[in-house]
């Protein structure tokens, strides 16, 4: 098996931070930690070359870097890509993730990254690329290389299946269907009897760990705070010209309301697909209380933001909702909004 090893310029031995804008290049044979990795393969695989780039170059010239790397990888004749170990280095980890995703997606080349569980690149890339767990810092280099060699051997020995390497891998955080040897009812009874009789048992579907969002302190120091109305209720202009999804939303919109005293049913629809929308379509202010907010505004000690923000929460996937929430929150911050009333279905 011909292995290509991806390193940043520092681990490849080409200068420190001052050389972090080094463009991608390919060199024959192993470099830096690749030398030891190649030894640890003990002949079962061979590091045929090293792909390297500066972390800064990578993040500053993303599209160009990807194109060059794809060309280098294709020309390398490699069959397998290993990136890192990147430990907890964020930019390095992100570069490893991008290069490995490219290898998997565009070249169909198997790949894995070695980095620590706390590397920010883990969340972005784990669904697609196997990630081998390392320590936080280079002090764990020796162990990391041994694990990387063991992981490669396990993959090769099981004919392209990662399951034998799984103790070394960080959970991919995904669930995939499979056909079990026994039917669900039988498994449920087996599981129950183990639980009753005090034998070890494990759920087939681990419960999720959600972030606990603490509502922030409502004390507002500004004498005339800016208040924004935000909803996940699927508020759209009549006819939904921008096609906000009625479920599983992947987008959000803002609508100007500066000149409005209330939301008129002729001008707005509620397209949320998980509730009976009849009452809120008769009066959209039931979903987004612009009418009451306007009534209170003159003497209420606040001013209303010029836009209302809308998405649909129905059947939302957690990553998509997190992204939408982050984007709306970032915009509210930029616009100097002090407080938000978020209405939910």
């Amino acid at each position: 098996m011909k292995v290509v090893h991806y390193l940043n310029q520092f681990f490849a031995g080409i200068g420190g931070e001052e050389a972090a804008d080094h463009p991608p290049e390919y060199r024959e044979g192993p470099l830096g930690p690749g030398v030891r990795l190649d030894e640890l393969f003990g002949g079962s695989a061979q590091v045929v070359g090293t792909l390297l780039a500066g972390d800064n170059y990578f993040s500053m010239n993303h599209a160009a870097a990807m194109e060059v790397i794809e060309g280098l990888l294709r020309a390398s004749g490699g069959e397998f890509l290993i990136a890192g170990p990147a430990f907890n280095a964020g930019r390095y980890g992100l570069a490893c993730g991008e290069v490995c995703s490219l290898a998997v997606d565009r070249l169909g080349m198997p790949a894995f990254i070695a980095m620590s569980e706390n590397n920010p690149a883990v969340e972005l890339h784990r669904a697609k690329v196997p990630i081998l767990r390392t320590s936080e810092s280079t002090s764990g280099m020796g162990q990391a290389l041994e694990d990387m060699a063991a992981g490669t051997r396990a993959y090769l020995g099981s004919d392209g299946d990662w399951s034998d390497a799984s103790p070394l891998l960080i959970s991919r955080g995904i669930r995939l269907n499979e056909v079990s040897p026994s039917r669900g009812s039988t498994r449920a009874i087996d599981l129950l009897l183990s639980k009753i009789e005090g034998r070890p048992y494990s759920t087939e579907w681990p419960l999720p760990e959600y972030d606990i969002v603490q509502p922030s302190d409502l004390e507002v120091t500004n004498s005339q705070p800016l208040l924004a109305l935000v909803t996940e209720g699927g508020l759209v202009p009549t006819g939904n010209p921008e096609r906000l999804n009625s479920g599983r939303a992947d987008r959000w919109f803002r609508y100007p309301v500066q000149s409005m005293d209330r939301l008129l049913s002729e001008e707005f629809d509620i397209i949320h697909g998980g509730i009976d929308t009849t009452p809120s379509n008769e009066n959209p202010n039931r979903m987004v209380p612009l009418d009451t907010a306007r009534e209170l505004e003159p003497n209420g000690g606040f001013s209303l933001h010029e836009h209302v923000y809308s998405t649909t929460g129905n059947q939302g996937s957690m990553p998509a909702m997190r992204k939408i929430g982050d984007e709306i929150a970032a915009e509210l911050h930029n616009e100097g909004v002090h407080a938000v009333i978020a209405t939910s279905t």
Partner: protein
Amino acid sequence: MALQLEYFDVTDIVLGDRTVLEGGTLVVDQDRLRAHLMEDDHFEDVSLHVAHPGDSLRVINAVDAVEPRCRLGNGDHDFPGFLSAPQTVGDGRTAVLRGAAVVEVSEPVPGESTYWREAFFDMTDSCNGFSPFSDLANLVIEVTPVKSIREDERPPLNVFEGTPEAVSLNRAIRMAGLKASVFMASAAEGSEPNEVATFDLPSRRNTDLPGIVYLYQLAIPYLYGEIVPGGGAIGGPAHLPTLIHPNEILDGALVCGWNAIACMRELTYVAQNHPIISDLYERSGKDLEFLGVVLFANGDTRESKDRLTGHATTLARLLNPDGAVINYAGGGHPCVDTMMICQKLEESGIPTTVLSMEMAPNPSDSGFVHFVREADAIVSTGNYEESYDFPEVKSVLGGTALLNSDSSPNGPFSYPLSGLLGSTNQFGFTNMTARSH
């Protein structure tokens, strides 16, 4: 209350001019059966087809599936509430054509919601292990409703019901499946069964074995001919939880009530062969003792959920169980009720397992509707949002188009498991599951 099921194995169905069971081959008198089904004035036409394992054939627009059965002996009452008065079933003798199914197919009519109506399965081996009907000999009944229903211009009233005409038509289509079931199974009368099994709950408690109760969440089925309402879904308050003898479920008391998502549709065939009830019976006296079944439907307000789940928990506790199996019927509200019951039982010291399908459009999403921390032993019946590739097939029964896909129904196409009839069945009828990676 002992039920004796007499199994007659069927491997082939042949359309012919008399109805007889010869070896494993069931010959069906197609003219007589067709005439019998055409007595219903909802239908302009009824046609009969057979679908066998290995055929390059796809069945689409399925409504329900039924195992051919008829009660034997005096005072027989098949599918009570439909084909007879709603008399109690679950004792006496019933003939079962094992290996066969009746599947009704019909294109949706305008007054009916198509939101959840897509329901198909293949007779090829592409869905081995998770398509309950792909390895059965199926009699497919294709129904064409009369013009007045077919060309009704009114839109559906809501996603659950549709117009009264559509509701009435759907009941008639299900009834056709039940009638065909009895018609076919009567061919076995007087023959020697391949196997006989007796089902009965223990009369006295054996305290050496853990006693297990099953809490059975319903998805709006017919029970003795009457719809069991879930809260809010089809109007009026939800049905109160009730104790029921498991034999009644196995013996035709419960019939599919509405066209829920195909992967979790509460099919009559699956109720007749209810996997949790069958497995509990199978193991009763060996490594557990089967205590009974509590049926429950979901509430639609916080208050009704408190009431209904409390009541279901109390009914279960009256049986003094050592453990409980709970299923989740699918959907939003029902999940909350299932989890509330799980929590209440665990809080009262009764260990539970929950069977649940997953619904994650993205594999990195958790797919949970709702959960409680006590639900630490869940059996996954698979993620119904995961898409599968269905191959090109030579022929299609049940219509000319898929409802939610522009692809030709002959395929090939990719479709989530949600459309595959019975695939992520909520009672664990199939071997489908999902695993974390």
